């Protein structure tokens, strides 16, 4: 089978990773029965290959993280890999995950908080900005005076 060793500096969480090729397409040989999810294979030794941290296996059309490298007697390099499922199925031309429905509860791309409360946002506890404003109509005087309302009996007869 052919494999291509690759290098990425992207965060492990990046879905659509960017790769630079560390090798051309190489012929690789499984060391035993090879799992589609955790393949192990050998290639001929080349010191440059040791820089790779990802590999693309054309037989499986998937991308794999290289989780182990070992140089063996006989100048072979054994690569132990684990599938990067999200990257593999994002980059597929058909049947990929780009059009899958998703409900997102956190997103950095929106750029700012939303109306959904965010308990991780660093609000300073017990500290508030106080803004106060007075009404536009100021009916009463700044030096208020008082008045009295007296209610008196109405009526009676002059003696």
């Amino acid at each position, binding site marked *: 089978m052919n494999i291509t060793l690759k290098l990425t500096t*992207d*965060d492990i*969480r*990046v*879905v659509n990773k960017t790769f630079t090729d560390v090798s051309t397409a190489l012929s690789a040989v499984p060391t035993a029965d090879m799992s589609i*999810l955790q393949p192990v294979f050998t290639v001929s030794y080349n010191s440059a290959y040791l820089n790779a941290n990802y590999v693309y296996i054309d037989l499986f059309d998937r991308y794999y993280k290289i989780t182990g490298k070992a140089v063996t007697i006989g100048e072979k390099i054994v690569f132990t890999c684990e*599938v990067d*499922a*999200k990257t593999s199925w*994002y980059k597929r031309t058909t*049947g990929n*995950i*780009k059009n*899958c*429905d*998703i*409900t*997102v*509860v*956190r*997103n*950095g*791309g*929106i750029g*700012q*908080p*939303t109306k*959904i*409360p965010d*308990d991780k*946002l*660093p*609000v*300073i506890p017990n*500290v508030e*900005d*106080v803004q*106060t404003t*007075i*009404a*536009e*109509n100021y*009916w*009463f*005087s*700044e030096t*208020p*005076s*008082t*008045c*009295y*309302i*007296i*209610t*008196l*009996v109405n*009526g*009676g*007869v*002059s003696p």
Partner: protein
Amino acid sequence: MTPNVNVYGAADTWLHVLPLSGYNADNKNFVPAWQTIGAGIAASKINFPDAIDNSICYAAIAEDSPIAEINTVQASAPTVKNTTLPVRSPIFAAFLNTESYGKFTQTYYDISNNTNVQIYTPNETLADANLNKYVQPMCSISPKDTVLKIVVRAYKDDWSSWNTFKYNEYLNGNESHPLPYYTEYPHIFHIYCLVYARTENSENRTRQYIDADNVGGFYIERDIEFNCPVWDTVKDYTLSCLKGGAFNGVHVWGICDVNGKPYYGDTPNYIYKCIGVDGTLKTINDAIIMYRDYNASDDFVRRCVASLGLFFCDDDNTAENGAYNSNTMYLGTIDENGLLHGDYTHGTDNETQSQYNWISTNDSTYDPTKDYDNTKYDNATHFNTQASVGSCNKRYIITEEVLNKCVGELATALTTYTTDTTQESSLKAFLTNNPMDCIISLKKFPVNNIPGYALTPTALKFGAYTSSDATIVGRELTKAWSQYDFTFSNNNRNGIYPVYGNTFLDYEPYTRAELIIPFCGTVQIPLADFMGHDIRVRLIIDFVTGACTAFIMRDLIALMSISGQAGVDIGVSGVQTATLDSQITNANMQYKAAQLNSKETTVSAFAQTISSGLKADVGSVIERGVSNYYNMEHAALYEQQAQYNAEHVQVPFKQLSASTGVISLAYEQACRLVIYRPKLSPDYDADVYAKTVGFACLKNGKVSDFSGLTVGAINLNGVPCTAEEKTMIINDFARGVIL
């Protein structure tokens, strides 16, 4: 809203309007899709009294739209609009099958011959009825590939003839007629649109006018209840005009009939349908029209077409080639409730509207099941005019100087009537043994601005006695209460407005607001109710009892009230004073007990919910996130409710707070709004936060719609990976990925 799959089937079963000229059949993204209702064309009828399932509706016409009204008019009674329906009707596009003559809408009724009517909407009782089988609603249309061009028909100033005009020529004239046509033809009696559809799947699109004569038409329909005095209640799918003759298009305003001639009804015993507001009926050559004169100061014609919520224009060139953000391209505005009011944008402002980015009308968020009908609600609280004070006793506004003289004056009055029977004299003169009791009440108000009193002071009259001292005068109070309005207007940025980008930080419990109202105290107000509105406080002071109530209004609607005490009773005898003091003390104690009891139990529940809400695990991202939000929100609201209840307890007598009306003298006699806002840590960096934590949200979409750090629940239906890989992908998205 996504069409109901139980009615219309899945999207991949929809039929695309392939035969319709003007559409590129290769690109199904923008070809309108329709569906028969039932199996086969003969069965695609709507049975009375069923309606079209309106899950295909992309917006609704609001009551204030210029096309919101539908009337019935009779040719023989040209000044009468029989039925006026202010409608809020969802709209959808429909395809006219070429096999029909287009008679699928109910447009007139022959009242002289019930057996020979042409009713084309569901009515099983008449011979020609139920021809609605040709109603084939569009499950989706692409707004960007369907541009409407406005056409008007107008009569000459002297009513001698009429003509048809493209709207840009009506406004500006053309090469052969430099003057605008409205100068000669001011009486507009019909407004409609021609439909232009995209023909190529490329950036340099052109559109072609749909020739409905050959291949069928495309209309904007609407689903309304149409109650007519002669028709039964039916479902009326009409806003359109029909195919036939030289006319093909979308009818928007004016009278229409069955033959695709939407300009006059010429049979006296026919009742016609008349769409739109602000029209005047007129008989011309025994035909009835509805017309409206062109007015350069309003934008009536465009507002009618804008009420369809699609792209539209005035001229051929824009219809065929215009960019969607060009200055001559307009786009009807759909508000946040999915309603069309007749507003529109043009030019680059079109890009701010949701339709600009729609793939199809299924991208609309309008939900016809939510009947937000603000005509059912009042928009102002009705306050009565001031009432007069009864004349049984007299009330005067007096100064302290006059008050000081009053007691002495009573003594003087008694000596005036001194005889051996002083008690009898007192009774006759003051109606009481003790002359002091002719002062029924004395209240001190910490204001001097009391509207509703006589301007000219008059002498105080103590029972039958009027003092000869010309300085013992007062202004007679002729009204029982007065109101004082305090306003925090939204336009002046004096009200409550968001400062954190209208996010959760701008609302409770993170931001709080309260009003300090003279004589009443402090009341917390809910931000969600007052954000972006005028806040008005109407303080009404009762001069009979001294009590006051402040009504807190959002714009003109009173939502809350708080009571207080403006006037202070002054005891004029020892007995009176003792009674007053004890009442004040009791009231204060009752209030404080109520407040403490209600707040204690709710605060502990709130704290408990908050602490449990902060836990998080990967397992069920959505469930945890949504339920935590709900719990926090619920507890916060519960605590708010207790606070609200405590503040609005009607204390039976004097004060709501510990202060009295006199103490209020020390505080400013103005209404004050206080807003408490949270502060973010100075170390907070939105960019870093976006990349490391991500902002809390609740959005649905496709994976490709999002970018940056994304945490969510993904549906992997249709992805042919292994089960283990699906678990990996689901878990990765639940923990957070970077798109």
